[in-house]
């Protein structure tokens, strides 16, 4: 299996688009527009992805086995059009966890240097 052979380290650091897409899929599968909405909400509108960036990233993440297509079906919350759903692979989840740990370590450094509120002085 590709997943067991590939090392998540190869993908780090992730681009903001890839990190946010993986993060949006961490709690379950979503279609393209669902991913876009969640990224916008998670970043309070600071990361705005257009359809081109979204599907360009999805294409590369599929090629890297970070995500996989689930199936194509209608979203009962939207309309009766069929939509393609995506979900994390095991490799994608490990990569996301490692990137989150890497960012967490960066935040700790920032805190140690008294750059954040709640820092120890």
């Amino acid at each position, binding site marked *: 299996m590709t997943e067991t052979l590939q090392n998540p380290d190869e993908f780090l650091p992730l681009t903001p688009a890839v990190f946010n897409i993986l993060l949006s899929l961490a709690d379950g599968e979503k279609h*393209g*527009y669902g991913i876009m909405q969640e990224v916008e909400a998670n970043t309070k509108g600071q990361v*705005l992805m*257009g*359809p*081109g960036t979204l599907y*360009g990233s999805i294409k590369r993440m599929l090629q890297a086995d970070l995500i996989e297509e689930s199936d194509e079906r209608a979203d*009962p919350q*939207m309309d009766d*059009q069929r939509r393609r759903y995506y979900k994390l692979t095991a490799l994608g989840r490990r990569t996301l966890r490692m990137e989150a740990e890497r960012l967490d370590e960066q935040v700790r450094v920032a805190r140690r240097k008294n750059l954040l509120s709640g820092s120890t002085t």
Partner: protein
Amino acid sequence: MISHPEEHPGVAVSVRIYRVLLAAYPTRFQQEYGSHMMQVFRDCCLRTVRQGGMNAMARLWAVTLLDVVQSVVSEHARKEIEMKKEMKPQDIRMAGWALMVGSVVFFLGGFIGALQYDNWYVMIALVALISTPLLAFGLLGLRRRYGDQVGGFGKNILLTGAVFGSLISIIGYFGEVGPIDGGNESLWALIFIGPGLLFACLALFGVIALFKKPLPRWNILPILAGLWLPLRWFPLMIPALITDTWSGDDALGIADTVFTILQFASLMALGYILKSDVPEESVATA
């Protein structure tokens, strides 16, 4: 199931324009993701109209256009990397032929249009639908063959001319004859601004070629093949696009004719060099 409110006319027009813009992406990407991208864009439009009305649509379009430009360049650059593994010598030869055939069709269209005004629609169809895409393919062939010798700017300028030159011309054509906006008269000038941009990018590539000399001979050709028509057209077409009135002189002067013929001959020669200059190792593996 929650049904959509009656679709707003602004949404329908926006989706149609977005569908045209999708033509700028590489074909394989477009086939795989085009319908999903349109679906997502339509969802964004519906939400924007519901929440912020037509003013918010202007902001959505600003974000979307930036996204289209960034992702089109990115996808073509990635396609280029893949093509380096896949592109066969006959593709470079075909790009040389495309430059030659495209220039013949282009100048034939201009000749037919100048001969009789009634032939206007034949001329714009030849220019927008046949000639400009062929010339764009020729520019991509130049980029593939000589890109490594001219550096990043030279490669990007050829890509910009090929993609946006043909796209602008096609948008102008469909704007003029109807399908986009029921025949928007102000869009007709785009039919010529598209190839004008393509030629201008070829001329800029020509400036770099003068210094880096990527062609086996006659490195002056790209600048001669690209410079004249943008100089002739842009001062006329851009005001015409803004005011929707033509204030130029349609009569061809002697200098105009000479420079136009020189540009045609240079394009033909450039195409001939490209089709004849396939790398030896590629020929061996062909």
